[in-house]
């Protein structure tokens, strides 16, 4: 297990290297730079050039790249002049928002999705199965950011039950935090709920048709035990894989949902940085997000290995 973990961690390095190269490519493509944002509409060409020189933006990209990698090796991701803080601070400050949003959505999507899927597989070919699957299909077809807007109007404005946006830190007010998370998390979960429900159903159907389940049933084991002890446990492998993929989707979906619900998360940080041409944040933000994603995938592989001991030695 440890060897497997080390192997996975090491194999993440080239991946993250490619990620950093792509972020440089993006920087190279982006027209303009931060100077217009700092200088504003008054700045003359000379002012802009002065700012550019002060921030080192006038130097060739390869030179900036070398400097950046040099700093990275010392654990320094750079400094954002617009935000007045180091990139690491800026990202870490917001990571809790994005992670709690993605985490809660993942929980919602998995729990509700699996319940729908189990229900559908157990009542295979009944109206329950069909309506669960139609729900799942409709859920995964809805564009989530649009659904978010509709949710804000419905629950935030018309009914007034929940806040329309904004974030309350957990440490300040747990109830407020929960209330601020309900709508965005549910919005984000809705499509993935459908994916998980469908996956659960099909792998449950696969497993339930296996001989040993039939044997267990024939031996008179109670239905619930059969489903949860044998069926679900063995259906977990494909489900875990899907959950892994979904956590990435949730991370990126959070980008858009954070904008819709005005949540100060990493996604909005990156989008804002792209709009403002805040290069250090774009690079650092994308790199850290990719790190989180790669790390989640390693966790998924571990879970996979746990559910299926044969998988441990696969690369």
């Amino acid at each position, binding site marked *: 297990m440890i060897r497997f973990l080390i192997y996975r961690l090491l194999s993440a390095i080239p991946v993250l290297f*490619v990620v950093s190269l792509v972020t440089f490519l993006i920087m190279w493509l982006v027209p303009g730079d931060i100077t217009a944002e700092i200088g504003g509409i008054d700045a003359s060409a000379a002012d802009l050039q002065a700012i550019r020189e002060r921030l080192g933006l006038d130097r060739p990209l390869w030179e900036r790249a070398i400097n950046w990698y040099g700093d990275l090796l010392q654990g320094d991701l750079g400094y954002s002049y617009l935000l007045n803080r180091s990139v690491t601070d800026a990202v870490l400050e917001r990571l809790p928002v994005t992670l709690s949003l993605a985490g809660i959505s993942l929980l919602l999507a998995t729990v509700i999705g699996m319940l729908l899927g189990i229900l559908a597989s157990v009542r295979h070919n009944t109206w329950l199965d069909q309506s669960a699957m139609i729900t799942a299909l409709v859920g995964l*077809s*809805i*564009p989530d950011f649009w659904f978010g807007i509709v949710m804000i*109007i419905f629950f935030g404005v018309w009914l007034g039950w929940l806040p329309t946006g904004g974030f309350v830190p957990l440490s300040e007010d747990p109830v407020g935090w929960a209330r601020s998370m309900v709508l965005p998390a549910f919005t984000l979960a809705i499509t993935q709920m459908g994916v998980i429900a469908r996956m659960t159903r099909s792998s449950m159907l696969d497993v339930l048709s296996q001989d040993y389940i039939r044997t267990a049933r024939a031996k008179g084991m109670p239905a619930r035990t059969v489903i949860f002890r044998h069926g679900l446990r063995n259906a977990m492998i494909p489900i875990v894989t899907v959950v892994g993929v979904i956590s990435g*989707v949730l991370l990126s979906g959070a980008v858009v949902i954070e904008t819709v619900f005005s949540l100060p998360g990493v996604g909005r940080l990156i989008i804002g940085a*792209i709009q403002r041409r805040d290069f250090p944040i774009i690079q650092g933000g994308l790199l850290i997000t990719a790190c989180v994603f*790669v790390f989640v995938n390693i966790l998924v592989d571990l879970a996979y290995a746990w559910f299926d001991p044969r998988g441990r030695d696969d690369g």
Partner: protein
Amino acid sequence: MTAEAATDSFSIGREIALARRRRKLVFLRRLFLHPSFLAGFIILTIFSLTALMADVIAPYEPTNLNYRSILAPPSAEFWFGTDAFGRDVLSRVIYGTRVSLRIGIAVVVLTGILGTLLGTLASYVKWLDGLIMRSLDGLMAFPGVLLAIALAAALGPSETNAIIALTVTFTPRTARIVRASVIVVQGMQFIEAAHAVGAGHARIIFKYILANSLSPLIVQLTFVFAVSIVAEAVLSFLGVGPPPPAPSLGNIIADGRSNIQEAWWIAVFPGLIIAVVVLGLNLMGDGLRDILDPRHSASRETR
């Protein structure tokens, strides 16, 4: 299939062709009898026809503005109401399907070509495998459409750039799927047989390997189509999609979002259309998967 059969007389060749056609017909028959596929196909046909005949169906020009009828609610004159420019939302949505369809098809075609190329190359040319796959892993390490957003913003808002950004984002997974299925097919006996009779690499790749790993690719591409349509809306929503006044579905939603309470119709209708089209594509994908790959029915790999 033996070497003799492949090179034998004309009549045998014709018989094979006939058998193929028969198989194709059977396949199509099964496909169109599949309820999901049929429902999805109908939805997509209506969508495509709307897009193709936009100039005939749309009651007004999609960019015609009229400041005397700003934010008018749905009525007999404007079925879907008007937007903040006094433009007819119905006409814009109709033309918007055209933009979505164009982006969807372009991304599917490009992703299909690039994915197949990279996937086949990786599986066929051993020394390239590591390089290609690690690069694709790197691209896939950007969660979801984050890469597309960053790329589209970097390239500047335009339809072409949105297509490029989405293609770059969706190619890696497609290439992986192609590579995986090519590797499976490569190991099969009939490929060895083809090698044995001295068939050229190109012939083997095109005639046997690709033809036989087509199913997962097709299923993946219906999925890419659906995601592209949603992703276009996301890009436009964030202001990095096709620029105005282009009536893309995402642009219409973006236009409507600041007045969502006063003029819900602007954002709600295009959103519904996207949901319905994506639903249609998902249904088609389900049907295709059921028939092409019965083992993994009713669920598909996710984004």
